[in-house]
Each structure stands twice: as C-alpha cells, then as structure tokens.
C-alpha cells in the first residue's frame, strides 16, 4: 500500500518537512525521508525539487563540506510549509473521521 500511495506523495512537502529537523545534504535528506515515509527519492527527483525550492527562496544552500552542500529551510519556507501542513492535517482529520463512520 505504501508504494501505491508513494506515487501520489508530494516530494516537495517531504523535503521541506525533513529540513525542519535541521540542515541536511542530499544523501541525508534521502535517508531521512526514507525513515519518515518509507519512500526512497531518486537523486534526479530530489535535486529537481531542491533546485525549484532554492529558486523560490523556500530553502537555501550552505557552504559545501566535502563536495556536499547542506540545505536549510528559510523563514519563508517554514511559513509556506506550516500552511501546507495545516491544510493536509485538516484533510487527514476529516478523512479519518469519515473513514471511522464508514467502517
């Protein structure tokens, strides 16, 4: 089931959520998202998301350490993520309540 849902998950949300735990480089992000959701993002997918988030000012790259640049969520990124998570939480609450009535 997790695999089927995985295709509908938004990698943007996963990356931003992972970065709320502190700055991470690409490999750290992949491992953290894997631990959180059981979904392993590919490097092409991850860097597509990172480039877009960086362009939109939601994250920023820090100085490189051993050919790896850690990324950090910005204040704007945190605000956008909070808004998204609140909507998602609301949908989840309603969905779970209706599922309870259904079963």
């Amino acid at each position, binding site marked *: 089931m997790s695999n089927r849902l995985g295709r509908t998950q938004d990698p943007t949300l996963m990356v931003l959520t992972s970065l709320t735990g502190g700055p991470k480089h690409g490999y750290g992000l992949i491992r953290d998202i894997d631990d959180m959701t059981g979904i392993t993002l590919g490097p092409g997918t991850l860097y597509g998301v990172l480039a877009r988030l960086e*362009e939109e000012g939601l994250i920023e790259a820090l100085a490189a350490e051993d050919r790896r640049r850690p990324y950090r969520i910005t204040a704007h990124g945190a605000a956008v993520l909070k808004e998204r998570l609140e909507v998602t939480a609301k949908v989840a609450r309603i969905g779970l309540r209706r599922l309870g009535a259904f079963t």
Partner: protein
Amino acid sequence: MRAPRLIDASLACYPAWWRDVYGEEIRRITQDLAADGGNEMRLAGDLLRGALTTRLRGTGMAPRPELWARRTRVSVAVATLPWIVVVPFVLAAMGGHSLRTLSAATLAAPATRISSYAFEVMQLALIVSFCAMAAGWGALVGGVRRAARPHRRHLMLLSCVPLASFLAVLGLFIARMTQLPNEFQSHGGPLIPLDGNPAAAHALLVVLWFALVAGVLASVWSLALVTKHAEMPMLYLRSGKRMATFTAIALTLMAVSAVVGAVAAAYHGYPVPSLDNFLYTGRYASGQYPVELPGWRLAGVPLTAAAVVSLTAWRVARRAWSTTVSLTD
C-alpha cells in the same frame, strides 16, 4: 570511487549550467546510494527523468539574459529542425500514384473525399512551410551576420549548408528530369522509351535520395551548431520564436492530415486529384482517374513524433523568450 558509466551518461544529459551547480553533489550522492546497494539502472533512470524535466522547465537556471537567450535559441532549433528531418519521409510517402477506373459511387464516397482533402492539406502545408523555412533561414543568416561572436565567419559558413544541400538536391532533380523518357513506343507489350536515358535517370534517382538524406543530416547538424553559438540580437531571436510557432502548427497540421488519411485509407479511400488539375489534363482516357497512393504510415509516424517534439520545444521557447525579455528590460 568512480561513478558507474550508466550514471555518468545520465548525468551528462543535464544542461551544462545545471551540472556546474549540482553536478559534483549529485555524483557524490549517486556514489553513496550505489554503495548502499542502490540499483544502478533505477538511479540512472531517475537521473534521466530529472535531466529531461530540467531541460523542459529550466528550473534553477541563473537569471542571466545570455543564458536565457541561448535557451530560447536552442528550443527554437529543437522546434524547427524536425521539419527538415521529416521532409524525406513526406516526399517518399507522397511519391506513388496509379491509374484506376473508379465508379461514381467510389468517387463520391466520404473516405475518398476525406482522403483527398487530407492529401491536399498535407501538400499545401509542406509547400507553405517550405517557403516559411526559407524565410526563417534568411532571418537566421541575418542574425548570424550581426551576431557578436569571435568566430562569426565559421558560423556564416555553417549556416549556408542548408542552401548548398538544397541546391545540390535541386540540381540532381533537374538532371534526372532531363534523362527521363518523354516518348514511348508500344507493340502491345511493355512500353519502349524512344528518348531519354532510363538507366541514367534511375542512377540519378538513387544519388538524389542519398544527397537528400545527407543534406538533411548536414543541415540539421550545422543549424543546431549555429543556433546554439550565434549570440544574435533580440530582433532575430523574436523571428526565431515566430518560426518555432509556425513550424509547430505546420507539423501538427501535416501529422493530423497523415492520421486522417491513414484512417480513410483503411476504408479504401484514396486521394483523387480534381480532373481540372493542370498536371493531369488530357493525359488519361475518360473513366480513368489518376489516384495518389500516399504511404500514410510512412509519413504519419515521423510526422506525429516531429509534431510532439516541435510543440513541446515551442512551449519551452515561448517561456524562455518571455524570461529573456523580462531579464533584458
């Protein structure tokens, strides 16, 4: 540790500006993931998909006018060059015709009429787009002449390759026409030519097709190089964007005609030129009709692929152009 070859090849598909920013990082990550037992094919596939998306969207590209102008030029080239590639297919597909005795019912059948219209539309789109491509080529040469590049002379020479190819093909076509027999003698058996040189005409036809294919490849290669490297003024870039729009529309029209024609052919509909067509006037006995036998599939498959590529690149060119304009202002 060296990244596997497949992953290197996938990374090479990303644009150069992207590799400059993220190349080293992503190489390191793929090495780590491969060391963790990650499937190399899966990693390479994901990188390929990422490279395609990056090329289409331009995400993460620095807001520098020269970079976006180059992106506009490259996408205009990708939108227009498929036209040159499909020309031999369309010409080959439109070549055959024969004489048929057709009944009034067959002539009036919807499949025959639809097929005839599709054939006319394809011919018209080919001729009009040829004229537009010639005009676009003229604009490109003008742009290269005013381009700010140290090796402008080489680019000018390269931009003349399509004209040289066209003149070579035209010359071979005329030479073949002069060798084709015009008068025949018949003794109830096969027709015997009284003039011309059929063997030479046949040899010239083979050479003509080789020249056409070689000319197409050389033209595509030279124009791709020129559009990528010639930093031409904005005015010429706008002409290029218009050419991309026109080519995308023309290719789509031709692809739709080919598909409609193929469907009509499945219902035994063949294009019948109108009898007042000057090419056929007085040539055939009454009751017989010159029926075109186009290879709809031969034209349809490459035309559909070319139309998809051209439309996608046109969308990229449109967005790249508007970003270039906003950065330049």
